[in-house]
């Protein structure tokens, strides 16, 4: 990444700090469950690996979206990024279905909400 500006670099550092925080909490809760302890260098190394893996994922996702002649990365692209491991693919597939059905539910709720509002205003108009 030779073309990153100072501002981008600062933003990346902040995001890395956010990842470090989450990785730290995750490792701590996992360690507590097994009466074991993760040393600080391990947490830093997992953070760094996750950060770089994210870079790889991002470039893959971008390429998949472009191949489908889109400029927005969709869930289909993420599913494709998880193709190497069957267990991971199945997990991501079920999660994507969960997200899609949650969205559908929200849309239905909104729709019925609007309908009710319309009825309310109609009733008010009748009065």
């Amino acid at each position, binding site marked *: 990444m030779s073309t990153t500006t100072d501002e*981008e670099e600062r*933003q*990346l550092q902040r*995001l890395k700090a*956010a*990842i470090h925080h*989450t*990785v730290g*909490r*995750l*490792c701590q*809760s*996992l*360690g507590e469950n*097994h*009466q*074991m*302890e*993760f*040393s600080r*260098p*391990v947490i830093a*190394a*997992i953070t760094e*690996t*996750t950060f770089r*893996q*994210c*870079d790889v*994922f*991002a*470039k893959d*996702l*971008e390429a998949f*979206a*472009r191949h489908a002649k889109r*400029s*927005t*990365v*969709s*869930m289909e*692209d*993420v*599913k494709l*990024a*998880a193709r*190497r*491991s069957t267990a*991971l693919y199945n*997990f*991501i597939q079920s*999660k*994507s279905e*969960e*997200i*899609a059905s*949650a*969205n559908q539910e929200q849309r239905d709720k909104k729709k019925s909400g609007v309908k009710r509002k319309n009825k309310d205003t109609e009733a008010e108009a009748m009065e």
Partner: protein
Amino acid sequence: MAENSSTELSFKKETVSKLLTLFFREERTRVSADAALLMTEMLYVFVEEAAQRTMKQAESEDCDKMDIEHFEKILPQLLLDF
């Protein structure tokens, strides 16, 4: 979506979305909200897997503190699996 206790510890959607956007080569590439949410799940699995495998490695060496050498041993296979 059914949020279980493990996803509460997971990454924020905004963080993942920003991170991906910064890593893209082209500026006009965007991430949909659903895709960002799905990526948080993916990264959660990645970190969880890294931590679990490190723990298993330390256990097999009869250590109760996970150190960098344990992580180093599981790293190649971890990267091959993702």
